């Protein structure tokens, strides 16, 4: 990578790494909490960017995997299993399996059908979450124990922050490799011109399904972290509002860019935090803001900083 390209990344990483000591020094631990939440959801946004930004699959149900990852942690804890590695494994595997099942059915469709179907399946999981009373149902459940890892204690807010930061960087890097590999090229080609792709011999379906599963698994990881972050899990994690939020993070940040999802996560969640501080009816302002951003600001934040990857 050219030095010029790596510089902004290095700079951003350094700023984010210095954030905790800075925030603690000025006595604002709440913002550390917020920053951590943003980073965790940024991982979900990165995962969605893979299939939405690069793959062109308008999956309106991605929050499902946040929920699955979170509940994996919660349910294991409920039954006395606290081992962090098992939590992560369960979250990722469960999300991957569900993504495989949902993807297998949905990816055969396209366009409007695909959007509605992914939304419907996530809603199904949402209702499933509500109706299983054992795990809190509507009200959700408290985490019995945070994920236990040998070297790092997630109960330490600063340590947890650095874990989240490291995972964001890792997820961006992994996505970057995937997107520029042969696999990624097929995915992007199918988005760019599907009939051309078929004419040269690519069947988009298996590649899209694989991307869908990878994306779901990554989002499941985000969900597992989120459960640890909030210490509390509710089915609302799988609501369509949450899915919409994730999509907006990807769009606002800039689709099919490496930094877009993170930028978008920061932008959206900071705006939401700001607005909700002003008024409890902040959504009446956010709604039109989002509409305007779609109409006028399509290229996203990353487009301001540099041209999107070809």
């Amino acid at each position, binding site marked *: 990578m050219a030095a010029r390209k790596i510089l902004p990344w290095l700079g951003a990483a350094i700023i984010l790494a210095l954030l905790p000591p800075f925030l603690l020094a000025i006595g604002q631990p709440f913002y550390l909490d917020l920053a951590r939440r943003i980073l965790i959801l940024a991982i979900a946004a990165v995962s969605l960017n893979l299939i*939405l930004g690069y793959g062109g699959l*308008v999956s*309106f149900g991605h929050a499902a995997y946040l929920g699955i990852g979170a509940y994996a942690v919660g349910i294991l804890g409920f039954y006395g299993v606290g081992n962090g590695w098992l939590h992560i494994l369960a979250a990722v595997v469960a999300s991957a399996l569900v993504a495989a099942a949902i993807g297998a*059915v*949905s990816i*055969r*469709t396209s*366009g*409007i*059908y695909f*959007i*509605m*179907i992914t*939304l*419907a*399946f996530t*809603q*199904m999981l949402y*209702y*499933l979450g*509500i*109706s*299983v*009373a*054992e795990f809190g149902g509507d009200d959700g459940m408290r985490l019995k124990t945070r994920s236990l890892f040998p070297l790092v204690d997630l109960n330490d807010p600063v340590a947890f922050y650095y874990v989240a930061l490291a995972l964001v960087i890792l997820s961006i890097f992994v996505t970057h490799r995937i997107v520029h590999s042969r696999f990624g090229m097929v995915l992007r080609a199918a988005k760019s011109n599907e009939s051309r792709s078929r004419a040269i011999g690519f069947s988009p379906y298996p590649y899209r399904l694989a991307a869908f599963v990878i994306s779901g698994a990554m989002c499941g990881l985000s969900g597992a972290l989120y459960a640890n972050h909030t210490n509390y899990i509710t089915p609302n994690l799988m609501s*369509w*509002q949450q899915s*919409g939020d994730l*999509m*907006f993070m990807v*769009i606002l940040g800039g689709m099919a860019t490496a930094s877009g999802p993170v930028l978008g996560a920061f932008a959206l969640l900071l705006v939401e935090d700001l607005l909700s501080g002003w008024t409890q*009816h*902040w*959504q*009446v302002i*956010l*709604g*039109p*803001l*989002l*509409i305007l951003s*779609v*109409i006028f600001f*399509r290229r996203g934040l990353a487009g301001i900083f540099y041209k999107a990857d070809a």
Partner: protein
Amino acid sequence: MTFGLVFEQLLNGLQFGVTLFLMAAGLTLVLGIMNFVNLAHGSLYMVGAYLALAAANWTGSYLAGVALGLAGTLLVGMLIEVIALRTLYARDHLDQVLATFGLILFFNELVAILWGRAALFASPPSWLSHHIDLFTGSRYPAYRAAIIVVGFFVAALLWYVVTRTRLGMLIRAGASNRTMVAALGVNIRLLYTLVFGFGAALAGLAGLMAGPIYNVQPGMGELVLIQVFVVVVIGGIGSVRGALVGAIIVGIVDTLGRAFLKPLMATVISAPAAESAGPALASMLIYLLMAAVLAFRPQGLFPARGG
């Protein structure tokens, strides 16, 4: 589980199906003709319920409430179309989804500002508050029966308009080949506004009729909307007939499932297991149904779109 009980739930399923149909008919036409994904369709349902309730309380008359509610929703629908949605017809589906998502947030909060977040109580008119006697010996709420009647009347009206009038012909042509209709010199903008307004009015009707049965509260539209999506997917985009068939199937499957799955399961597995698994499975039924239909016919049962 007597026959009377089953029949009563069947009627409930029909009533729910009719509500779904009213929403699905408008949505499927907008999807098919204008190729426009309108997530805010649920908001129109909500607006209909709130406007009718407010108007009824203000005028003291149920029917005035219905009329004003319908007119109001039609107006709101056309306003949204002209102000916010026109620019989105040319955009891709993602943009439409995101923009109408913003609309949902806006409307839900607006309604909360005007009428609060708590669920409001809407009651059927006094002349529909009684029960009618069924041939099975049990009694059924007249209001719900009225909904079924109104729903089928609207279905018949729609059938007439779509198959026997010029407007209907344009609608059917537009659903299968939009560009052709435009090329024939039809005023597409007007057609779009009319179709959208029509769909909005239907959604509003569904909402105001549903008010006394379900809760009138912010966000009520989205709960129904997703089930309406299931109906449209099963029925096929652009097809009113598909919307009717899909809606009845979904309405009945969902209602019967919620009523009888748990006791049915309790006969084969243990009672406590059925207690938790029953409602869970029941809430998943229509989505599993959708998946099953998709496995065999990814375009739905009666897709309107031609090659």
